[in-house]
């Protein structure tokens, strides 16, 4: 039974350095993964991960213990990635605005060819499809499926309204599907 993030943070605020080490151990892998996927640069991903924790420490006095920690820490990381990304990869990080919904292509009954891929091949193609997504779509996909966020948590982590999260997630998956089908 592991201790909750909020409990560890309270401990840390009371001077227990080990509690923060535990949080660093817990969140370094997912935050590095997010930053790496979004920025595709191992050095930048390391910087973002380190900077995320430093921002939490520098904001410690103002940090609220009554709000969930997980969306909060990801929100810092997402913002850092966006700030760096907008400078270094402006195209991938452009605001999506009100892009029209893509045509629903999967309503027909015929199973798409990707259905026949074995899991391993499918995963490889998914990775490629994911990498081709704009950063905003990629972010919601990673939060939802790699990190098991609820829609509410994604909304908190991305500062987006809940409905925008739903729409974005749906469109992200549609783009992934259409990419998989193009590859067939």
């Amino acid at each position, binding site marked *: 039974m592991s201790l909750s993030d909020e409990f560890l943070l309270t401990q840390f605020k009371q001077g227990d*350095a080990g509690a*923060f*080490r535990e949080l*660093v*151990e817990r969140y*370094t*892998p*997912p935050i*590095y*993964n997010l930053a*790496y*996927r979004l920025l595709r640069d*191992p050095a930048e*991903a*390391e*910087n973002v*991960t*380190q*900077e995320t*924790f*430093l*921002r939490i*420490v*520098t904001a410690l006095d103002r940090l609220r213990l009554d709000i969930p920690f997980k969306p909060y820490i990801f929100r810092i990381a997402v913002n850092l990635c966006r*700030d*760096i990304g907008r*400078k270094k990869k402006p195209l991938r990080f452009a605001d999506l605005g009100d892009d029209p919904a893509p045509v*629903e292509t*999967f*309503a027909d*009954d015929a*199973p*798409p060819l990707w*259905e026949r891929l074995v*899991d391993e091949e*499918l*995963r490889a193609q*998914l*990775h490629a499809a*994911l990498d081709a997504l704009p950063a905003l779509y990629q972010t919601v*996909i990673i939060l*939802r*499926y*790699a990190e*098991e966020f609820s*829609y509410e948590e994604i909304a908190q982590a991305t500062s987006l309204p809940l409905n925008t999260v739903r729409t974005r997630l*749906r469109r992200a*998956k549609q783009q*992934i*599907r259409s990419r998989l089908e193009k590859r067939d």
Partner: protein
Amino acid sequence: MDIPHLTPLEIEQYAEQEVPATRRAAVDAHVAACDSCRAQATRHTRLTASLRALTRQAAPADLAARISTHVEQYLTQEQIRRTRVPLIASAMVFSFLLVLWFALEMIVAFQENGVLDFFTLYTNDPGLVSLYSWDAILALCETLPFSEITLTGFALITALVLAQQLVDTLRPRTPRPEGF
């Protein structure tokens, strides 16, 4: 089947287990009965399951340890910084008091040895100075209160350096600029 098929949105909601409570029973029943909708839901579920199964890009093995060390170093510096503030502040106040004290001493000394009188004379009638012999001017210089001047200057520099230190120490450490 006579009833309409599920919409793509409903299929997605079903696969994500996000069907609104009011529709849940109807959607479940339809999926159970309809091969076509079930096939689509299964397809969707397989896609999301594969997305869930994607492995994370592994972080360097020592990254967490390095970050912890960095954070602890930062916190230690912060601790030192905080304990230093009262010390620097009191040293600064003391130095400014010294400046006042030495400056007063200096003014008193200037008055005592007649240098001030000379300056008043000089500003009123600069031509008068040319009447002074070099010896007289040198004698005047020798009577200048050098130790008071030096002490005032020294205390002033010390006070300013301490004030600067205090500002530096009090300034919150801002996160590094973008790009690090």
